[in-house]
């Protein structure tokens, strides 16, 4: 027996060194963590491809917690279809049979091994700048602070540090390229940016969310207003600068402002992403709450009422069974109803007839349908005949009644089977209208056939209605194998 190999979802977390990307990747692919890490470092050395890949996975792959939260939003009810739920969840849960148990990987040696080979994040110039002022692993600091910001907003200091480092990097690059950077202008700009950032950070999370909400920044209009404001500011600055100096200087200024803005955007990106995800989660939570309320209302109206009835009638077994069956049917209809399915199908008619018989006689009637077609007048006769057969089966047969409807291009067939003691169809008196008239006669009149087979194992009624009228010959009778066509 072969089944598809089980593959855990791709989530970050578990034993992490930076952001848990390598560990998550290794778990997902079923490779050793060490190999993935070495591979990532080698790729990083090859022109920084590994760094880009790592960053991309970092941003795109959810952490185990986030994934679990998303998973929790899926219907958790035992009756809801589980197949539609994506197969994602906390990766920290390991099956003992899986060949890759979570091994606590020593983080320290890895960090040490990674640090010397790690390419500086903002660029080579930044690397040298950082190396001058900090230990060799300085290149990791902004990366670490990014990680923190994705999970929490409390790390304002690291954000400022990152922004400062980026700014310094930009200045150094500009110098290396031979551009005379007017430090006298940039330092005030940096101060202003820093001040704004600090002011922004002082607001706590809820107030910030409230502010964004109030200004409708999460709506299209809010974004348009924001863009318009930015455009105005940029245009104003351009005019100001171009008024005071040459076009060359204007372009340089523009370039440096774009660089600064880009740096800031880069720094704020993870924060923005995190904020966006929170918003999505909250929205989904609200939808879920509404759904839950609807389900609660329905359960109260139907299931709880039935349970109360059952408790009051606990002494009467038939009543309890009947109530339970009726409630089960109703609940199934509600849970698995198909809104896309148009009404008036043959299967619906058969199901309704079965439900009616169940209700009136208290016998379980199991219906299996294969294929379907629209109900016509002739199919109405088929349903009536089937209903009569089910009534007979429930009345005379013991145990459950099986009903099978199969609709093909050629014909619609219904089989009603019980496990009763059986009877001899030929011995049924001619004045008994039940079988002869309601089942056989009705089918024949509408161009169909009815065959009744009975033995000590039970009785089966086979109804067949060709799709095109008049093709069936209701005359020929086959009396073989105990079959009798009446």
């Amino acid at each position, binding site marked *: 027996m072969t089944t598809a190999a089980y593959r855990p*979802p791709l989530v970050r977390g578990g034993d992490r060194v930076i952001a848990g990307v390598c560990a998550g990747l290794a778990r997902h692919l079923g490779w050793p963590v060490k190999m993935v890490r070495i591979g990532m470092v080698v790729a990083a050395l090859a022109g920084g491809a590994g760094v880009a890949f790592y960053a991309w996975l970092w941003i795109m792959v959810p952490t185990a917690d986030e994934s679990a939260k998303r998973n929790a939003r899926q219907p958790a009810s035992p009756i809801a279809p*589980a197949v539609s739920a994506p197969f994602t969840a906390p990766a920290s849960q390991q099956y003992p049979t899986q060949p890759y148990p979570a091994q606590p990987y020593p983080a320290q040696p890895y960090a040490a091994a990674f640090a010397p080979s790690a390419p500086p994040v903002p660029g080579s110039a930044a690397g040298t700048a950082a190396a001058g002022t900090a230990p060799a692993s300085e290149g990791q600091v902004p990366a670490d602070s990014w990680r923190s910001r994705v999970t929490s907003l409390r790390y304002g200091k690291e954000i400022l540090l990152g922004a400062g480092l980026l700014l310094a990097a930009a200045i150094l690059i500009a110098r290396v390229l031979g551009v005379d950077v007017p430090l006298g202008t940039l330092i005030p700009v940096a101060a202003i940016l820093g001040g704004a950032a600090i002011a922004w950070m002082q607001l706590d999370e809820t107030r910030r969310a409230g502010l964004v909400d109030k200004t409708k920044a999460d709506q299209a209009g809010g974004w348009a207003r924001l863009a318009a404001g930015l455009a105005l500011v940029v245009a104003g600055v351009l005019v100001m600068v171009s008024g005071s100096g040459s076009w060359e200087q204007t372009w340089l200024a523009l370039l440096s402002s774009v660089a600064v803005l880009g740096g800031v955007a880069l720094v704020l990106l993870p924060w923005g992403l995190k904020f966006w995800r929170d918003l999505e989660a909250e929205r989904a939570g609200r939808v879920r709450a509404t759904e839950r309320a609807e389900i609660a209302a329905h359960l109260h109206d139907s299931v709880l009422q039935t349970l109360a009835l059952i408790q009051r009638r606990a002494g009467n077994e038939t009543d309890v069974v009947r109530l339970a069956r009726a409630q089960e049917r109703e609940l199934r209809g509600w849970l698995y109803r198909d809104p896309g399915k148009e009404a008036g199908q043959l299967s619906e008619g058969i199901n309704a007839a079965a439900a009616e018989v169940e209700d009136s006689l208290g016998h379980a009637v199991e219906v299996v349908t294969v294929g379907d077609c629209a109900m016509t007048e002739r199919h109405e006769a088929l349903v009536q005949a089937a209903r009569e057969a089910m009534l007979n089966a429930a009345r005379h047969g013991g145990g459950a009644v099986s009903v099978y409807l199969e609709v093909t291009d050629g014909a619609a067939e219904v089989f009603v089977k019980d496990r009763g003691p059986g009877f001899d169809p030929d011995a049924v008196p001619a004045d008994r209208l039940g079988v002869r008239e309601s089942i056989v006669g009705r089918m024949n009149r509408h161009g169909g056939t009815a065959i009744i087979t009975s033995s000590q194992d039970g009785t089966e009624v086979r109804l067949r209605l060709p799709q095109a009228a008049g093709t069936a010959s209701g005359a020929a009778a086959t009396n073989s194998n105990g079959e009798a066509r009446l």
Partner: protein
Amino acid sequence: MSTIEEASPARGIRVVIVDDHAIFRSGLKADLDPDIVVAGEAGTVEEAVVVIAAVRPDVVLLDVHLPGGLGGGGREVLAGSVPLLGSTRFLALSVSDAAEDVVSVIRAGARGYVTKTISGAEISDAVRRVAGGDAVFSPRLAGFVLDAFGTAPADIADDELDRLSARELEVMRLIARGYSYKEVAKELFISIKTVETHVSAVLRKLQLSSRHELTRWAAERRLL
């Protein structure tokens, strides 16, 4: 919640019951015939995987909907017990009857599917059948198979896995009509062993067919 009882020296069929409702587990335990020994119970996906690996039963009675794990229910237990699939057989139990549940758990490796409302004698019979290496098809599952594979018999040109043979179709139809294996054998003038062979062949096709319609069909079908 999970218990591992001492292995019984009696030569019975050892089963593990996996269901999150303790009432259902104890009811089922009481209903099973005396030659079927309940060697362990579990209520969640994690417990089930551990208990099944420890007990190595002949048959696992597996509820399709289970809490825990990644939310995949019975399928996940099957996925976590892949190394045992050769020796331990799984019989899926469910109240749901939704095609996608049934088909997915069968495709994950279960040898049969029955609804929770069936009687103790019927489920004991199903356990014995599964333990003997046969497949257990309820009328509902047979109906799903017919719906998914189509009711036209296989052409020679078709991929062998994607269609049912004329004989397999006949067997499936009779099972859908409520016939027991014995009745099917009598109706078709074949031995019960042959019926079991046909049913196992259908199960294999259901599990292995790469027919993309099968999955799509199961996902789309929400009626019932």
